[in-house]
């Protein structure tokens, strides 16, 4: 293959610059994280799902998301030794792999594929969507002695998505209660102007990110909203509330528009449009993607990138006039904090809105927050709505649960049925 010429964009690579930018952003973030404590900064552990990271920004606390570090480590093949460390001390094989990796990485001097991670100065427990969060922080609390700061977030319990006012009040009240705690912890005063500025930047980034994901509605879609989003969702999590983050999504949006105008996309053609549900498989990420890429299938929309915030559901606005209430609402509407019928209906709506051919559910054996109910989701979509739906299982970080022959068999058969339907 001849190398791409400087002026004309010829290969897909040329339209894939945002991914590279994301790589830089992630690298810089890790750099900042690994040196934070040496620079006298506090490291706060937090969760990805609908977190109010704006508070960390204002108090200058460097966030560490064990979900992000774990997925990065496992993407680089580094999960097995960490999981082994945890299982050696007694963690069950059935426990969430993120927890096992996170706990091992926070043990004295454990070196990981991305370096020796700082231990927590603070454990920020935001209970959006996953119960294991509580247990995880408890483990780290007993292991490291770091204090836990809790923000309780009620589950979206109504099947029509309605959220009671008392839920929002309760979360907002706790956010307010957390301010003096954070002031004491950092020795800094809460700067309201700074907070508003951070909120503004956050909203801006969210808006752009939402537009990016909407691009999947185009036919063909210029992006793979599942596999590529794995990369694209990093900045909104890691550096939200900064200009850099806003710039990234602006760039990405432009790039995708360009792809669209050149008729370029992540696969040679777009033969199938799929909706994806569930956490991907990180240790075999590329292999897994290939199973779909080979069939010229693109993920046009997926629920996974929405774990950080439900930007496309109309339930999401950050409002600087009511910062606490609007953050509270955002936290309540985390994807896994929705009850199952809501999640299922969202998928059904995606199939319609994005003109998809079918749904692929990648179910994680050790993550019940996502997977409990995915079987029923399949029941509903396949049986009641006659939408071709494939349910496959493995793990997000543990390579021991990935059986290639088995998964390939299912994926191949799924494409055979899609082809049949197409012919009919």
């Amino acid at each position, binding site marked *: 293959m001849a190398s791409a010429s400087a002026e004309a964009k010829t290969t897909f690579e040329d339209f894939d610059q945002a991914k590279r930018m994301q790589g830089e952003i992630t690298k810089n973030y890790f750099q900042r994280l690994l040196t934070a404590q040496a620079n006298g900064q506090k490291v706060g552990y937090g969760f990805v799902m609908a977190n109010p990271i704006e508070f960390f920004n204002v108090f200058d606390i460097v966030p560490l998301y064990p979900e992000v570090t774990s997925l990065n480590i496992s993407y680089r093949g580094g999960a097995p030794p960490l999981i082994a460390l945890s299982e050696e001390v007694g963690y069950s094989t059935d426990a969430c792999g993120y927890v096992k990796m996170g706990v091992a990485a926070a043990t004295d001097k454990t070196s990981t594929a991305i370096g020796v991670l700082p231990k927590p100065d603070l454990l920020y427990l935001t209970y959006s969507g996953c119960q294991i969060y509580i247990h995880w922080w408890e483990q780290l609390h007993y292991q490291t002695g770091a204090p836990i700061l809790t923000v309780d977030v009620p589950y979206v319990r109504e099947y029509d998505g309605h959220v009671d006012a008392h839920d929002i009040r309760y979360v907002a009240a706790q956010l307010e209660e957390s301010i003096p705690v954070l002031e004491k912890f950092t020795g800094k005063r809460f700067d309201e102007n700074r907070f508003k500025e951070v909120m503004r930047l956050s909203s801006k980034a969210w808006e752009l990110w939402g537009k990016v994901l909407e691009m999947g509605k185009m036919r063909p879609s210029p992006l793979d909203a599942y596999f590529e989003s794995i990369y694209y969702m990093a900045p909104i999590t890691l550096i939200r509330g900064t200009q850099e983050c806003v710039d990234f999504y602006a760039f990405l949006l432009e790039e995708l528009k360009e792809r669209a105008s050149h008729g370029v996309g992540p696969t040679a053609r777009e033969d199938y449009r799929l909706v994806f549900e569930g956490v991907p498989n990180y240790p075999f990420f590329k292999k897994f993607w290939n199973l779909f890429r080979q069939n010229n299938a693109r993920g046009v929309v997926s629920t996974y990138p929405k774990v950080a915030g439900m930007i496309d559901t109309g339930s999401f606005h950050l409002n600087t006039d009511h910062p606490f209430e609007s953050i509270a609402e955002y936290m309540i509407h985390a994807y896994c904090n929705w009850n199952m019928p809501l999640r299922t209906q969202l998928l059904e709506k995606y199939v319609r809105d994005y003109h998809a051919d079918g749904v692929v559910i990648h179910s994680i054996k050790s993550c019940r927050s996502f997977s409990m109910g995915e079987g029923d989701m399949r029941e509903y979509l*396949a*049986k009641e709505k006659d939408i071709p739906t494939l349910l496959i299982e*493995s793990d997000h970080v543990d390579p021991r*649960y990935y059986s290639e022959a*088995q998964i390939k*068999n299912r994926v*191949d*058969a799924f494409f*055979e*049925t899609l082809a049949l339907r197409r012919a009919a």
Partner: protein
Amino acid sequence: MQASRSYYAGIDAGSTYTKGALVDDRGNIVGTAVDMTGVNIVTASKKIYGLLLDKTGMNESDVAYVVGTGYGRYRITFGNTQVTEISCHAKGAHLLYPNTHTVLDMGGQDTKAIRVNAHGEVMDFSMNDKCAAGTGRFIEGSARVLGLKLQEVGELSLRSTNPVKISSTCAVFAETETQEQLAWGHSLEDVLYGIHASMATRAIGLLRRVGIEPEITFTGGVSMNPGMIRALEEQLGQRLNHDGKTMYCGAIGAAIFALERASSATHEGGSAA
């Protein structure tokens, strides 16, 4: 040979057995063959192909198209193309029992429930999940551990009068559980039937995922097992289609695909290989 190249072969390279089937240009089954897969899939599938030709008195030149299926489908080097065994079992079951709407395929390492339409095409399918309990391998394991022949297991279980409950969710563990039940003094027949009953419950769970619509055709190696048939029929409260050919269903379906592909390939004027 009067009509050269008017036969179509399907080879199903399964985890346990490799099966072959040959059909003529009207879709009649001309012959079948089976043998252990063993360690070398390439050799095993070649061997079955040879056996199939021998048994039917054909030459390679009589065969117009070969479709491979099963786990080893990509290793069937002499095949023209490959199709997953899910589509093949559906196709094969439809040929054997044209009123089939649901297929249950129990093979060596997985169990599949398939919903098919009036043309034998797959509408939906579901396979045993990550946890492998409830496949034919489990019966094989129990047979080996107990020093029984595979064929004996099902027969013996039919003599059970007071089935023991084997509930383990794990195939590995269930093997031990089997022996424990024996150690506690339950009869061999009762324990064996217990195994079949517990596997049947799992299989029915899978069938429910795709919806149970009569007729149900039982395919795969385990459809040769009378104990399993009884357990399934008892729990489902309805009869299953099965016979000596259902074990070859995957290969038969593959042969039918070979027939279909070959005719569409001639229409398009190209080869799918």
